[in-house]
């Protein structure tokens, strides 16, 4: 029973992992760039939702939409000013522009917000649902449902709208997309905005059970990379499967190992997958 409970817990958190990692894979899929600063946008999303709760009284689950919008806008600006300029640069330039961005965002948040830990209080924070012998924390369930909702919305956007299709066309062949009248630069801005916006959204919905501070992103860095590499860098569907897989691996491994080593199991999975199949276990290779 403990095992089933662990799997259930893993699925709940895995849904959120999927959403915070989708952005990473989306950006890689469209422009072939790994954003090492992705987790810092999660931190920013959490801060937006935290301040929306503190000053506007918005529940983080509602505030998450505000997080998405604000960080989407920030993402568009970052794409226009920084990423765009290294699109055709060698990987070393691409890597260190986003690493530099990571350092900048982390320290800006430290300067602006201080190093204190912040958390929100909600009415449902300590509630639990009982399903026979199993338990689900209400904040976890709420975050999970919000995550599924946003993933579904993204799927509708990329598959059913003109912009979504144009974005995928840009991913496949920017030159041809340009010739068909698609503004590839605009599509990249949307993709980057969506990419970091989704991550910010995922950060906001976990706020009811997670404290926020400027270095909160650290805990998510390798986790996100594991999710996207498991699913195949560039594959959005893969990120969803990878997110659930990572959530379950993490949760189940605590049954067998001390909790500090939880992430160790993940890293080993990560390195093994990179070694065996760098294009990912699931999803299309790029």
């Amino acid at each position: 029973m403990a095992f089933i409970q662990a799997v259930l817990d893993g699925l709940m958190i895995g849904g959120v992992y999927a959403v915070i990692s989708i952005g990473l894979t989306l950006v890689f899929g469209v422009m072939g760039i790994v954003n090492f600063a992705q987790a810092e946008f999660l931190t920013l999303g959490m801060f937006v939702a935290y301040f929306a709760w503190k000053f506007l009284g918005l529940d983080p689950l509602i505030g998450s939409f505000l997080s998405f919008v604000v960080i989407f806008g920030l993402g568009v600006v970052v794409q226009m000013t920084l990423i765009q300029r290294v699109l055709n640069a060698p990987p070393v330039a691409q890597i260190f522009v986003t690493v530099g961005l990571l350092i900048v965002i982390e320290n800006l948040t430290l300067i602006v917000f201080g190093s204190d830990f912040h958390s929100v209080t909600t009415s449902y924070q300590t509630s639990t649902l009982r399903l026979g012998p199993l338990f689900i924390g209400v904040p976890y369930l709420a975050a999970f449902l919000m995550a599924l909702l946003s993933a579904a919305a993204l799927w509708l956007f990329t598959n059913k709208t003109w912009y979504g299709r144009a974005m995928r066309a840009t991913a496949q062949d920017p030159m041809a997309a340009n010739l068909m009248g698609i503004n590839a630069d605009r599509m990249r801005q949307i993709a980057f905005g969506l990419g970091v916006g989704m991550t910010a959204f995922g950060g906001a919905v976990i706020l009811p059970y997670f404290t926020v501070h400027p270095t909160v992103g650290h805990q998510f860095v390798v986790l996100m990379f594991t999710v996207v590499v498991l699913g195949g860098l560039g594959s959005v569907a893969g990120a969803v499967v990878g997110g659930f897989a990572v959530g379950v691996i993490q949760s189940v491994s605590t049954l067998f190992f001390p909790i500090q080593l939880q992430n160790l199991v993940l890293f080993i999975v990560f390195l093994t997958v990179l070694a065996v199949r760098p294009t990912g276990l699931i999803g299309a290779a790029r």
Partner: protein
Amino acid sequence: MKWWIAGAVVLVAAAIVPTFLDPTGYAIRVLTLALLFAALGQAWNIVGGLANQISLGHAAFFGLGAYTSTILLINFGLSPWIGMLAGAAIAAVAAYLLSFPTMKLRGHYFALATLAFSEVLRVIAGSWTSVTGGPVGLSVPFSPDSFWLLQFKSTMPYYYIMLGALVVISGVFLWVRHSSLGYRLRALKENPEAAEVVGVNTTQVKITAAVISAALTATLGTLYAQFTYFFDPEAVFGIIPISVRAAIIAILGGAGTVVGPIIGAFLIVPMEEMANVLLSSRGAGLSQLAFGVMLIAIILIEPRGILALITNGVSRLRRRKSS
């Protein structure tokens, strides 16, 4: 041969400079750190600069060096000089083993894999409390002014030790670059498929470079531990304090060149220290912020580093004069 003369002049100057400084003062401490990080950038340069394998995990080897020698010193009273060799050997083995999962990876994938590897070690160092002291870290037992225990009251001896390390590692870098290994590394960098076709065993070349670089990095980890007397997992296995800094120092100065990491370190380390002194009263993070901004700026202006910026400028001036 003018090149050698310039090198000798710089070296003599570097040897004389500390005699004008307060041997326990702040300035010599900053210079000593700059030398240490120049050497670290140079060790990274062997893999990152020559083979263009962008490692974001050199903290793994640095930390192995720091922990191995310090654990041997604390538990067995073993001299750090011996611990340094032990750390280098362990790091070499680690690099050898790591090369199997990362052999075929390039660019972003290689960076990700090396980053994950150093994170594995950071987590182990943070949780294996009985040996590593856990998140609290380790303190080197203080028994100063013993060359055998590599401990001195004054900063001066450390300065010369770091200078020696930089000279040795730069020598290894030059040797690798001009040996047949260096030519094979360059072939690998330019075009891996073509290198393979003309008979370069790219796998073996990569492993050799990685092992040399890792062993050298570990010796610097030992020196760092002896110099600071205290470290925790974040300080020696940290992505930004060690891995990213090593790479940035090499890239900022000019990756693949021998003077690149030296230029990079002598720009970055004093700048960071100065920013720390000037800005620390205005809150943590400002100096790191400046560091990040500078990194982005140099990548956007000239990704090949400051050296390229200077040589471009000089050749442009020359062209203008001759026309």
